[in-house]
């Protein structure tokens, strides 16, 4: 099953490891070492991709990098223990698109194309956000990054970049990287240790948490936050009640939820074990306990909003201050310094000028 995720590279490349993985056997090398070796191979490939070189070398480096990426993906998915079900094909596809965009971005000699490849990375990341259930942030990312920040970069490129003339293919400093070898070495030492930290056996214990039980606990925590929003709680309780209501006799009209009963401290949520719910008062005078399950939780955007204002109000304010300071800073930095003489400064300040109009420097000031 694992071998179906990505087309496996030629058997000539890393033969023993690839064939062992394709057959599903435990490879002769230990799994931790496999990750490290794949990282090292992709590092070497990246060095060759960053330097200007003959076409054959670049193609070989691309193939080697793809093979290393395939090994990484197979190894990482194996550790997730999702070998029995369908392989997560969409994450792999979007991950591949994002990685290809990122590599092309740091290797492309033309800055405008690098910026365009970055948009590709943003879109692939947004797709991964969608797959992880973060719909609001996915679209916010596309709007803010691809729509706003990248346009600013494009403007600055337009202002500051000399367009490449004739056949030289752009400026010298865009074509030749600086210290590519040591930069890649540093980056991939970090990548190897990071992947070991993420995907070692002890770190992967979180996959036992991705279970129904955690989902219930997470939903109950979300209900607790929602408890601070009385109006939203009332509409949600109404929805939950309407969905769960069954008439005692066939022609009984359905009573309406009038209000949510609140404790002395203002909270309405009651939890019995894993069950969360609220007490509601109905229009026929009776009251009833309505169970709140995860399916009645508000949509993702609303949950993010509730979390933002109920848990992180100070962070929200500070973010506003940071944006304001960035605005001032950008204005101060980009302002052009104009040399003014003593006399012009007096004129601008509304004071009387020394020179009379018509003489040198006098351009219609106060007489």
């Amino acid at each position, binding site marked *: 099953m694992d071998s179906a995720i990505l087309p496996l590279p030629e058997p000539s490349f890393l033969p023993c490891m690839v064939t062992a993985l394709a057959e599903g056997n435990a490879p002769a090398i230990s799994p931790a070492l496999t990750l490290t070796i794949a990282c090292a191979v992709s590092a070497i490939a990246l060095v060759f991709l960053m330097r200007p070189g003959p076409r054959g070398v670049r193609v070989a480096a691309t193939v080697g990098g793809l093979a290393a990426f395939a090994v990484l993906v197979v190894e990482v998915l194996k550790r*997730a223990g999702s070998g029995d079900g369908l*392989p997560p094909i969409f*994450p792999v596809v979007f991950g591949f698109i*994002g990685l290809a965009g*990122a590599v092309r971005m740091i290797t492309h000699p033309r800055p405008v194309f690098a910026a365009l490849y970055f948009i590709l990375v943003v879109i692939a990341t947004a797709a991964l956000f969608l*797959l992880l259930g973060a719909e609001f942030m996915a679209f916010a990312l596309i709007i803010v990054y691809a729509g706003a920040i990248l346009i600013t*970069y494009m403007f600055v490129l337009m202002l500051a970049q000399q367009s490449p003339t004739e056949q030289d293919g752009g400026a010298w400093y865009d074509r030749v990287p600086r210290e590519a070898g040591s930069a890649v070495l540093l980056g991939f030492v970090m990548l190897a240790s990071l992947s070991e930290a*993420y995907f070692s056996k002890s770190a992967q214990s979180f996959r036992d*948490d991705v279970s129904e039980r955690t989902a219930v606990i997470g939903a109950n925590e979300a209900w607790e936050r929602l408890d601070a929003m009385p109006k939203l709680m009332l509409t949600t309780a109404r929805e939950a009640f309407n969905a769960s209501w069954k008439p005692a006799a066939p022609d009984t009209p359905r009573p309406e939820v009038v209000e949510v009963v609140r404790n002395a401290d203002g909270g309405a949520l009651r939890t019995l074990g894993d069950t969360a719910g609220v007490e509601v008062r109905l229009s026929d005078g009776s009251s009833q306990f309505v169970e709140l399950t995860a399916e009645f939780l508000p949509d*993702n955007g609303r949950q993010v909003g509730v979390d933002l204002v109920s848990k992180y109000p100070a962070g929200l304010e500070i973010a506003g201050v940071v944006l304001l300071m960035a605005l001032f800073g950008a204005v101060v930095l980009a302002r052009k310094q104009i040399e003014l003489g003593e006399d012009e400064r007096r004129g601008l300040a509304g004071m009387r000028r020394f020179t009379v109009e018509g003489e040198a420097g006098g351009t219609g000031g106060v007489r």
Partner: protein
Amino acid sequence: MNPIELASIQPDFGAALLAAADAGTVNMALLMSALLFTCGLVGFLSRRNMIIMFLCTELMFQAAALAMIAFGAVHHDVSGQVFVIFILTIAAAEAALALGLIVLLYRRRETLDSEAWSELKDA
């Protein structure tokens, strides 16, 4: 996967897209976040064009945001997504300031090469 299997999952595209994240998706997102961060770091260290260097810092921001969302999905907690809002804020502020700086530096030296400012380093 053979073509028949692939065709059979096509109608469920929306459902597959919006289903709760499983461990494979989370692992893939974590791997992507590590790889994107590495690419950003390598690009920042080895490119000479100052605009590309700051574009690479944006790449590292992306990687951090992806890791936040992935771990938020593990814990069924939307706080990870709220942190991404803050990351976006900081990224926007950083882009505005960095680009202002770059325009300023470009006006002084008429080049985007970061080596033009290498006399700023000590020794």
